[in-house]
């Protein structure tokens, strides 16, 4: 079972990495194209919202990678003190508590994001190239969902010696 969880986590990691590479390539190309088109007095209204939504997507995908690398920005005073004192077991248990809290909040956020998507699908409008705002905001539950899963896998890993924090 843990192997399956690990497989899914690895698949999320690989997907996020490649999606980020593609996003960056498109963002860069479109930004450069905007400058070049301006020389010829040409503007494409869809480019700007496309770039901004790609940055928005990248925020979540980067967050997915940060979760896997346990690299999120936090205050973390207590764990530094506990590590310095050598209280590894207590620190590990507190880390598990933090992971559980993170999962709870992320599931709550995902649920709220799904409600928002439903509202946008009903009351939103087309943003660019025939893409409806309801589709674009799906980035949010999708992103929070992936991050929640990775926190779950981090939590599972704390029970194996390899995954100890």
């Amino acid at each position, binding site marked *: 079972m843990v192997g399956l969880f690990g497989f899914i986590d690895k698949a999320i990691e690989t997907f996020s990495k490649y999606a*980020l590479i593609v996003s960056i390539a498109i963002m860069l190309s479109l930004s*450069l194209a905007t400058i070049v088109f301006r020389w010829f007095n040409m503007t494409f209204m869809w480019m700007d919202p496309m770039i901004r939504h790609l940055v928005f997507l990248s*925020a979540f995908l980067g967050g997915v*990678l*940060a979760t896997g690398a346990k690299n999120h920005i936090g*205050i973390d005073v207590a764990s530094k003190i506990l590590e310095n004192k050598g209280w590894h077991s207590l620190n590990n248990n507190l880390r598990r508590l*933090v992971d559980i*809290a993170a999962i709870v909040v992320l599931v709550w956020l995902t649920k709220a994001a799904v409600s928002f998507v439903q509202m946008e699908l009903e009351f939103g409008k087309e943003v660019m190239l025939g893409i409806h705002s309801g589709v*674009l905001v799906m980035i*949010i539950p999708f992103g929070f969902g992936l991050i929640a899963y990775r926190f779950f896998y981090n939590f599972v890993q704390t029970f194996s010696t390899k995954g100890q924090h």
Partner: protein
Amino acid sequence: MQLLPYAGILLLASLGLPIFIVMSALALVAFTFAEIDVSAVIVEIYRIASAPTLLTIPLFTLAGYIMAESKSPVRLLRLAQASLGWLPGGIAIVGVVICAFFTSFTGASGVTIIAIGGLLYPILSKEGYSEDFNLGLITTCGSVGLLFPPSLPIILYGLIAKVDIDRLFRAGIVPGIVIMLVLGFWAIKKGKSGNARQAFSFSELRGALWEARYELPLPIFVLGGIYGGFTTASEASAITLFYVIIMECFLYRDVSLTKDMPKIIGESMTLVGAILLILCCALGMTNYLVDEEVPMKILGMMKQYIDSKLMFLLVLNIFLLIVGCLMDIFSAIIVVVPLILPIANEFQVDPIHLAIIFLTNLEIGYITPPVGINLFISSFRFNKPVTTLYRASFPFLLLMLVALAIITYVPSLSLFWFN
């Protein structure tokens, strides 16, 4: 009873719950208690997708990471050594200059200490500087340069405070130089007592200039493009990244487009994702606090004890130094700026000057014990106990406080461009 969930969340924050989750949880709880549908938190999160300069964050950061992975640090170090190494304390000054350049591109993310520190440390040791001086200098310089364009914290501040980023870029230049001068004088003083200088060689300077010929136009792309009116900040970030890719992958061939680039994109976007998530998730909470007029309530309390701008600036410095000790710069900007902005406005502190004071304080926070992040990065990089870093960085902390006092109480250093 309503305080209990907030207390629990803050306790979890101290245990290491990521800041973006802390901010989200606070917003979700606050909205629930206010009987507002929690999807309003998501509406606030989505608002970030309409921020016009958002693109600069991933692109400038990626450009900095690519340079850090290449041999740019070696080339620029050689150039700085050839041009400044003949001064008393010249090698240490070289360290300050080169770290400032790199930090402005990598956003004080610790990359400077990892990329430059390892190169600089043996050179400084060879030139006779003490271990404490070397460790202190490198640890401090890991965030020096944060006031120079296109620094990530400046961009983030502009986004949050809705201050023109182009103006902020300009405002930070002189205060950034003040910090470098203060550290430079210390390096000269230390250098005079040792042998820390090398003979000037024109041929070495020429060779170093030739070697770094492709890196030298970079500041022109950033500053020249924006202030020449040719590009916006977002476009400058795209041009910079494009140029850095061409330079490192095709001209110098230090970085492989297929082998190295995916790894570098992954590493840089991990930082970008972590920052942008905080930015997204904090919007709900900070807007809730602003709607509830929390800053005005704080202002009302403060006005009972503080009646002058000078006194306010002193209290602000103390407050921000404490914030800098406890929070990283990105979270601090996102969480604290919306709260202090209206208060500073009431005390007639210019928003651009406030930005520079804010960022300088947080720059100092990087080396302030107990949890200044540079102390831990240096501890990891040089395999020294963090307490050694506390001791080594202390004189630099005092120097930075001197620079902070100058920057805070001489506003014209930041604002003379606009008068």
